[in-house]
């Protein structure tokens, strides 16, 4: 649910959590995006940065510049002026994926959990548009929600996290898809691998010129199935820095 009025929760003395609701919904996410924009525009003194998420926003501030109680009263004022947002700008980004096999060793398990074939999992996953609801944990890692899937794919996470997840892994945990931008531990079921980076610390591809992170809240992703040969070809293009991401600027309505 979305709360009647947001909750202001202390996250220490340099951060504040503003909680909108307690569920992952597009509606809550839209509210967070609207709030995020309003806070950034308000230019409250002592404000450092925001981290918008599924159903809450983490705000960092300098307590030497603004006292926490003053910050909260400023935010209450901002809150009164946050417009109702029915539509947000959203980029549609295509990411090529090789599903299954050594690229996604848990695809069979995902199929079994959903009582469908691995091919059907791939078909549904690559047909469904995915919504970026939050970015983080590791640099640039998105959490993705399936938008109007023909069948909602869902799978239990690992009971004990594995210690190694290859870079670029696409994985499902519950009904959320994650992409692993760097080698890291992980608990989501691995279904495939993308051949293009979503995090580039050297900022060598032109898309990363402004930030080493590709994705942000409100983006949408279309996974495009590729075979091993295409996968290698695209990776080669990435290494040569000649790969061009397929991105469309659109708006999304609730």
């Amino acid at each position, binding site marked *: 649910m979305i709360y009647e009025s947001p909750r202001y929760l*202390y996250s220490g003395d*340099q951060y504040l*959590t503003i909680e909108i609701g307690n569920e992952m919904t597009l509606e809550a996410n839209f509210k967070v995006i609207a709030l995020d924009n309003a806070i950034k525009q308000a230019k409250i003194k002592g404000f450092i940065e925001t981290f918008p998420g599924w159903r809450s926003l983490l705000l960092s501030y300098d307590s030497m510049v603004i006292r926490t109680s003053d910050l909260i009263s400023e935010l209450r004022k901002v809150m009164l002026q946050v417009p109702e947002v029915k539509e947000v700008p959203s980029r549609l980004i295509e990411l090529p994926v090789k599903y299954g096999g050594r690229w996604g060793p848990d695809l069979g398990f995902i199929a079994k959990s959903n009582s469908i074939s691995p091919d059907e999992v791939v078909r549904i996953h690559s047909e469904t548009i995915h919504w970026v609801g939050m970015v983080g*944990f590791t640099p640039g890692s998105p959490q993705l929600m399936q938008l109007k899937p023909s069948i909602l794919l869902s799978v239990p996470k690992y009971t004990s996290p594995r210690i190694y997840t290859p870079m670029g892994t696409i994985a499902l945990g519950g009904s959320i898809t994650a992409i692993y931008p760097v080698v890291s531990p992980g608990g989501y079921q691995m279904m495939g691998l993308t051949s293009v980076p979503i995090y580039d610390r050297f900022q060598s591809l032109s898309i990363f010129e402004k*930030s080493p992170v590709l994705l942000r809240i409100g983006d949408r992703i279309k996974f495009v199935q590729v075979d091993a040969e295409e996968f290698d070809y695209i990776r080669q293009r990435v290494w040569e820095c000649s790969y061009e991401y397929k991105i469309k600027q659109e708006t999304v309505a609730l």
Partner: protein
Amino acid sequence: MSQAAFEVIEPGVFTTIQDLGRKGYFASGIPPSGAMDRFALRMGNLLVKNPIDEAGIEMTAIGMKVKVLKETVIALTGADFSAKLNGNSIPLWQTVYLRGGDFLSIGKPNRGWRGYLCVAGGIDVPPVLGSKSTYTLGGLGGIRGRTLKKGDLIPVGIPRSPLDTLKGRMVKESVLPEAGSEKELRVILGPQDDHVKEESIEVFLNSSYKVSIRSNRVGYRFEGPQLFFKERPESRDAGLDPSNIVDDGNAIGAIQIPAGKEPICLGPDGVTMGGYVKIACLIAADMGRMAQLKPRDLIRFKSVTVDEAYLILKKLIESAEEKNIQIPKE
């Protein structure tokens, strides 16, 4: 042009270049990083007359051994690593003059866990995303985004003041961290303390915790009693365990309690989000205390208000000022 001032002979265990951290990339999953004991870094910079947010070198558990390549002035702050210059002990919290050909050996800490080396002119590596701080997981900052290794040449900027004006500068004893003060970590309850049973909040605030061996800049883990959660309605999005919540952003200093066991207090390289109840958050002023905890140290958590946290931090920041540097009498 900056010149290398040091050649790393032995890098120590986890030695990184750190300033006061990176801002503006939290929403991209990139935590601020930066010196874990900011007071120690600030004081070190003050001693060598650098800007207070200049980069220094943070050493953990075992210090580095370096060959000095040119005349310079350094200050060692934070943990006492019983550092030696050409075999002779050198003091902590004061400037030390080095000559080309000197050998600086920073050993093991006999008090504290993280030591800082600041050098006149600062460590001259290019800022990445606005900061020189090393973030190893993301491969950002410092020298190629990693810990220092044998053979690294450490570039140093041009000193702001002539080296002879730095001679004999030392931190006044009255502002040095009190011995034993690290045994208490002050926290502000929340953001999800309301998920935890009242009795367990009492247990959390009244128990002794042992620092786990698996503690680092990402997070410090504490071994202690089991904590229990209130009954909550089933949640579609939060996961089955009552220690799960719908993922939200993690403050630096947030204390997660997965399954009610082993609180994890996130450090400057902490993961930016997660799905675990955060019972409390460490106050900013005590991140430096936590930085000085070594595995198996015993600590307690103490609850303070945001207003108390403000006063504590204000006092700490104001103590890292020039008035608290003792200058030798002519």
